[in-house]
């Protein structure tokens, strides 16, 4: 090879950059996060799979509804009525009370930084007894 040194150096640099995820991960796949689901409450405002994919759109709708037209009532898929409130409904004591055990798990895993918390204050988490 002519100019072999430079070319091989170039190949190595290129390889190093392009294989970044492989050596960065180095064979240790972080386990898929498990969210802690509510114990008491069995149903959400929409079925689980729907919420998994589209919760951000539901919350977006709620915000617009509350802030812009002062409509606070949400009729869920099962006919029940809910108060449109992130802090009081979603994150009530019976549901997803702990941001760190529910919201953050997936968001951190997939690198999502929602701007909910620009305005909302997540409910205080009581330091529970450790298991």
């Amino acid at each position: 090879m002519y100019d072999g040194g430079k070319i091989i150096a170039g190949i190595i640099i290129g390889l190093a950059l392009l294989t970044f995820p492989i050596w960065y991960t180095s064979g240790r796949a972080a386990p898929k996060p498990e969210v802690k689901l509510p114990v008491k409450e069995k149903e959400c405002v929409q079925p689980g799979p729907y919420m998994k994919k589209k919760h951000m759109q539901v919350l977006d709708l709620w915000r617009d509804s509350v802030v812009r037209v002062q409509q606070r009532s949400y009729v869920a898929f099962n006919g029940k009525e809910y108060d449109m409130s992130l802090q009081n409904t979603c994150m009530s004591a019976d549901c997803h009370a702990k941001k760190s055990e529910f919201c953050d798990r997936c968001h951190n895993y997939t690198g999502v930084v929602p701007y909910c918390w620009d305005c909302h204050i997540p409910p205080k988490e009581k330091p529970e007894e450790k298991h």
Partner: protein
Amino acid sequence: MNVILSLIVSSVAVFGLVVIAFVGVWGAHLEWLFGVVIPYLAVITFFVGMIYRVVQWGKCAMPFRIPSTCGQQKTLPWLKRTYVDKLDNPVGTVAVVGRMILEVLCFRSLFRNTRLEFGNGQEIKYKSAKWLWFGSIVFHYTFLIVLLRHLRFFTEPMPFFVPIIEKVDGFFQLYVPTLYQSGLLLGAAATFLLLRRVIDGKMRYISLPADYFPLFLILGLATTGVLMRYVLKADVVSIKELTMGLVSFRPVVPEGISVLFYIHIFLVSVFFAYFPFSKLTHMAGVFLSPTRNVSNNSRIVRHINPWNYPVKVHTYAAYEDEFREKMIDAGLPVEKGAPEPAKPE
């Protein structure tokens, strides 16, 4: 091949790929094939193919130094050269590296682009035409940003720059989930590059299916990506489980990933596998271009041609043998048989 045929061939090819992935996963449930086997094969093809390409180029000799000089040469000590001259007509490694950086990162040569205006009569004008440069810059850099953003699926924890890129890219906080400007711009730039091929008569005439195919492929990639993120939605946690399985070499195929994802990753796989066999090799080739990556110094330093071989020449002796009489008559000096100094007069 005519433009219409080229467009048909290349768009049908991309559409065919979509159908293959759709049938394969939705009909035949070949999630492992499309989610694991093919991506692995594609990435291997990419790396082996690209290294093979570069090594093949490396094996070709560089017999002469033939930089395209685009500025004043290094010459008399009092003749000052501007920075532009030093970069466009480089002497020495630093200048060459500078020229290559400008070329690779800023598309320096494309920035010179002009457009011919051939008016009737004898009015010929060369208008500045930065659109191609601008379109290409936007296309390549947004592509890079999109790629870097995808690191969120391939690293855990994410390196510091990924959230920063995402934050900047989603700066306007439009739509939910946040709209990335890079995606929008990438689509626009690819469309621009496609349209100029179809609309400009010259471009139409020189374009091959091999020019349309990658553009359609990239537009296909972008479309499936947009659908997944904004419209049909996808289970990102499961997807990341799959992609992390790939990079950690512990492949898994979680339940609940939509067929759209498999179409997307299949198009990506084809894109990677296609790379080394196509014009996309310009990604590596640009670094090796002998009209850009050498010094204009062959009058200063002798450059060696590895296959320089002796050639048949017409020597002075043979020349003089042929013309000796005439040279002597004309009073030109000769080596042999010069008239004796004893001149009669």
